């Protein structure tokens, strides 16, 4: 047995104006789950604590709560000393119980065709990964799109795809899915992160439904424009100035001895819209002894097309890009765009390793920059944090470059998944939420490592937004200036 203390949100609408926290110290067994700590509170402190549970083994989806802010099953999450337990983000009935019925009512039911036979093994295998859902609604509670739109929620769209894959279903799942907000998903993958069954709703449902919608001509007009541009120019971003590729040679040699060599996948945003940041990155690589090879025949990675379901042209892009790097014998390809990085890592099968710039710099170790005299906060790009599982590296690098680093809560900025172009009002509303978080930190600068986030957040806040590589380069410049000054 061990003793733990937990804070539990309590709310009885009959007497309380709003929820409040109570702290309890309980004795639990080694390996106890959150649910067992709640049982201990109920049995030993306050039998009126309202919370749901049933199977106790992660199979029924009754007991989801927020543990330190993150939704999960109380029966599967290990109880920790000091944890805070809150209900899911739905209307509260009492304490930890919430009204799940409005969401469950939106989950489509199968409409079996009268003459349908048994699906084939292939069809069953396709459906299965979407069938594991236990409707705990953790994903719906965590989804940022729901905060600002009437998006029905990840698992609701999951079910639309599950039914779309079933030859026995006779419903019109695409029309249904669009009505339920198919184009509201930013593909931030927060739902996958909290799903106890690890169901990849964005990848296996949203993007697939968007593909079917595309085949039926139902892709949003703004997304179609992007696809047209990629087909015509190989780029998803309009050319407004001299591009990055036009400004650099194929091989960028470092200053001093060569410590390493990487290929550089620049991506459309850095190539066409914010080339200066990519140029800054090259300076940082030079300074740290890393040779950069930049194949000029690289094209769009295809992410804007995959996320919006316009996949007919993607195979062609993949082949061009893989060839561009493979032909030059490049073993490691670096990205500085989180979206491109996640796409190359997750949607490609490459004969080379793909690494984010923060992974490369961490691996080689960097020359210390002079610290900029600013307080900086960091915005986790979804496609870096969840798309690539990278959160520590950029923070560690940032701490080297600024006087003070402050955390802010992680949430999608609203730019991804084609939302900035397709549903700008949603992107704006999510951006405004980021602005609130940024303001709350009191930081002078917001740092990130994704051009889409950078561009979008800059539109939504007065606080300057910078790429991490720019911060490092400014630190080097400051260091040089200080040396010069003291010399």
């Amino acid at each position, binding site marked *: 047995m061990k003793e733990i203390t937990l804070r539990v949100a309590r709310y009885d609408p009959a007497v309380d104006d709003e929820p409040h926290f109570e702290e309890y110290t309980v004795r639990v067994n080694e390996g106890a789950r959150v649910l067992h700590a709640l049982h201990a509170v109920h049995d030993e402190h306050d039998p009126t604590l309202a919370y749901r549970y*049933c199977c106790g083994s992660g199979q029924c989806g009754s007991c989801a709560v927020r543990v330190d802010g993150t939704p999960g099953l109380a029966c599967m999450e290990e109880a920790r000393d000091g944890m805070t337990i809150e209900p899911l983000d739905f209307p509260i009935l009492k304490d930890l*119980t919430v009204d799940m019925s409005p969401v469950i009512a939106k989950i489509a039911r199968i409409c079996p065709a009268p003459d349908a036979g048994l699906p084939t093994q292939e069809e069953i295998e396709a459906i299965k990964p979407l069938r594991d859902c236990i409707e705990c609604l953790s994903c719906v509670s965590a989804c940022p799109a729901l905060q600002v739109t009437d998006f029905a929620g990840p698992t609701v769209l999951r079910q639309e795809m599950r039914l779309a894959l079933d030859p026995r279903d006779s419903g019109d799942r695409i029309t249904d899915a669009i009505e339920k907000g198919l184009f509201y998903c930013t593909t931030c993958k927060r739902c996958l992160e909290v799903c106890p069954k690890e169901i990849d709703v964005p990848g296996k449902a949203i993007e697939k439904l968007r593909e079917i919608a595309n085949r039926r001509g139902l892709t949003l007009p703004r997304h179609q424009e992007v696809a047209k541009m990629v087909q015509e120019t190989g780029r998803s971003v309009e050319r407004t100035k001299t591009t990055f590729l036009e400004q650099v040679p194929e091989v960028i040699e470092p200053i001093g001895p060569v410590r390493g060599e990487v290929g550089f996948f620049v991506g459309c945003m850095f190539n066409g819209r914010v080339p200066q940041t990519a140029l800054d990155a090259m300076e940082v690589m030079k300074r740290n002894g890393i040779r950069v090879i930049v194949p000029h025949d690289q094209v769009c990675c295809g992410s804007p097309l995959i996320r919006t379901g316009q996949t007919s042209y993607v195979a062609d892009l993949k082949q061009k890009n893989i060839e561009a790097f493979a032909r030059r014998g490049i073993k490691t390809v670096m990205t500085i765009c989180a979206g491109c990085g996640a796409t190359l890592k997750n949607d490609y099968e490459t004969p080379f390793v793909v690494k984010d710039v923060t992974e490369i710099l961490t691996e080689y170790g960097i020359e210390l920059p002079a610290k900029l005299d600013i307080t900086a906060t960091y915005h986790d790009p979804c496609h870096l944090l969840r798309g690539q599982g990278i959160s520590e590296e950029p923070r560690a690098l940032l701490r080297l470059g600024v006087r003070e680093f402050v955390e802010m809560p992680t949430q999608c900025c609203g730019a991804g998944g084609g939302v900035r172009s397709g549903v700008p009002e949603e992107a704006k509303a999510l951006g405004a939420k980021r602005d609130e978080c940024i303001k709350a930190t009191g930081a002078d600068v917001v740092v990130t490592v994704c051009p889409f986030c950078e561009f979008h957040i800059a539109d939504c806040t007065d606080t300057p937004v910078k790429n991490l590589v720019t911060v490092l380069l400014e630190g080097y410049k400051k260091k040089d200036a200080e040396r010069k000054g003291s010399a």
Partner: protein
Amino acid sequence: MVLYNAPINKMLVDEIVDAHVLVIGSGGAGVRAAIEASRYGGVVLVSKTIAGKGGCTTMAEGGFNAVLRDQDSVLVHREDTLKGGAYLNDPALVDALTHEAPERIADLIRWGAVFDVTDDRQVAQRPFGGQRFPRTCYAGDRTGHEMIMTLLDRLDATDTRLYQEVSVIDLIKDENGAVAGAIALDRDGSLMLFRSDATVLATGGGTQAYDISTNSAAGTGDGFAMAYRAGAELIDMEMVQFHPTGAVYPYDARGRLVTEAVRGEGGILLNARRERFMERYDPERMELSTRDVVARAIATEVLEGRGTNRGGVYLDVTHLPRERIEARLPVMLEQFLAYGVDIRREPMEVAPTAHHIMGGLRITPECRTTIPGLFACGEVSGGVHGANRLGGNALAETQVFGKRAGEFAGRSPERNGQVDAGQIDEKIHMLDAFLEGTVSPATVRKDLKLTMWNQAGIFRNAPDLRTALAHIRGLADQRLCAASTANLLECCTVRNMCTTASLIVRCALLRPENRGAHVRRDAEKTDPATSPFCHTYASISREGIERREVPA
């Protein structure tokens, strides 16, 4: 109706709902019953949880037995079931089960269930214990969840009225002695009265009465207790199936089901000396012997000092291909990983756990109980599985008898008696007493569970059973205390658990033989086929054991 709405000791009936058929329970049997009854209209389904989340169907992992291949036959399924049940089963119920299971799985597939299929597009089947043909259909190791999701889809297409998180606390009868509905508590503890022409009890099992149990929190035996109080007769309540393989640690997860599919897929059992001990207990069927045999084998290994330090044995699948474990046993993989065990690389530790109550309400093949107006189906009924249930027969039972109960309840005539107001008064007084009680239901529950595990578990004897019975009676007499109206249900539940436990122990004392899951160390082992004993029975008015003609 004015009477019911009048405040009586701060309590009142807040809502009255009328139905033709009232179905109590939202597991596989209850939902199937409601679907079938809805053909006749006026169906109300009352679920004490959010529908689909309660009960044990949704947790059922392994499968659904049905004869689907030419090489298999209903007759063999019938024989396997009777032999597995130590010939205590009601043969008419077994006939219904085995004949109709194929039609019922066809219903599920027609309604959209995603069962695994073979590459030649047939429903896939795996071997399960005690069966001579691999006839267990499955959806990975989440078969029950697949069924319940499908059934809820189908239910949604009917005009059944669904009351969720409303818990029935007792059945109500009319002046003719027919069941006329039920009285229930909603989430806040407000009282509801359901009136019906026919009532289907589909409340599932009750092995939560044991300290170590696979059952969901809802498996508290409410149906056994409510029907008993209403005067129905129950049979074979001593027949409690201990599933051989429950998790051993961490402590709070003890008893969690480790599906028989693990052994069906090729998992082997080893004791702490790494001996494949089933060779000594059932060399022919080994790990796929019937559950009673495997559970006793494991318990014996542990009792005789050949268990692990944590009091279990090893269940090992590490010799199976990783992909097979990932595809066929994903829930097992996920659950053990959550506790730090990768079953692809290391063995699981398992020990027996109370799983299923084979006994229950005495029913006819039309699911009629011994009192008019009350039907029962699923685990709350008795007789289908005899003294030991075959894995895969419970899910089949929910569908076969769910449909039957729904059909015959639906066909019931309009009931013309009046609900007896006195009974409602009585319930209200009982609830009022809880508000003034002094003993925490949590304390009684814990005490009861330990008593049952220690004195009415796998190995039994008369002195222990008598001690247990006296103790349970003491617990049942405690003045339980509800901290608020929302806590009244807890008191009712603990009371039901005490009644269920008492029925199990009383019937265990009535059966002086070792048979199937019932092992009395102070009794002889009888040959199941020629045992002179048949069902034990218990009701408010009588209890005993039936004898039968012994074939010469």
